[in-house]
């Protein structure tokens, strides 16, 4: 039931944002449409949802400036590599440890690594303790030290939120 209520609120909010100048007629049709959507997708979202404490949302909000700054730094660095005449990339597939346990924590870690670090998450080991990353700048000397340190830095932020 909590899943249904959350989905109803989210779909109604998206409907109201798509119809931005707020008025009562659009709000009534939005209630109808959100109800129909919940009815049609009742077989898809059957996993029960757990409403986290309010600390989760505040923690996510506090993480945004850090990740935005990392995203900007990484993108400028990446673009300078792309436009460099010699194309200075040393890609390799590395395997790094992670200590996050929950599914949503791992999802956030993989998405944030994709958007704001130099790597892309290819796969997660079945025991949920190893990530296979494709990292764009592995020096020949150090095996995966750069990747491991970045993943540790991100984990320290996410551990406060999701554990």
């Amino acid at each position, binding site marked *: 039931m909590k899943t249904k209520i959350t989905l109803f609120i989210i779909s109604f909010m998206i409907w109201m944002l798509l119809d*931005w100048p707020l008025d009562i007629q659009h709000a009534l049709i939005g209630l109808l449409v959100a109800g129909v959507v919940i009815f049609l997708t009742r077989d898809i979202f059957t996993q029960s949802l757990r409403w986290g404490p309010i600390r989760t949302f505040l923690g996510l909000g506090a993480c945004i400036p850090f990740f935005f700054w990392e995203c900007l730094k990484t993108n400028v660095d990446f673009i300078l590599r792309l436009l460099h005449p010699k194309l200075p990339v040393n890609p390799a597939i590395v395997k790094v440890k992670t200590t996050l346990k929950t599914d949503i924590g791992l999802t956030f870690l993989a998405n944030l690594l994709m*958007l704001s670090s130099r790597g892309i998450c*290819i796969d997660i080991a079945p025991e949920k303790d190893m990530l296979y990353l*494709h990292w764009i700048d592995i020096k020949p000397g150090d095996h995966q030290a750069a990747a491991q340190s970045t993943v540790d830095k991100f984990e320290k932020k996410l551990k406060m939120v999701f554990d």
Partner: protein
Amino acid sequence: MSEIIGTIFIVIGLVFDIAGCIGLIRLPDVYNRLQATTKSITLGTCSILLGAFIIKGFTGIGVKSLLCIMLLLLTAPAAAHALSRAADISKIKAWEKKDALS
């Protein structure tokens, strides 16, 4: 004033997008190309949409572009993960730099 700031954001976004497209051509294999397209182009497109929001303010167009930023940030990494995992399952080798040729 808001038009000037919005135009600056749009120009920065175009620079990131063009660099991402150049990366798509120059980089050697599928994983590197996924990195170029997802990272640079997500940031560039978000910057263009933010410029549109700054120019238009809280009208229909501006609020829709904020919604687009949110949906793009949620869906672009998921698509890239699906593509890279598919490439890994079908056993595509990652490219590595050869010292003699470089």
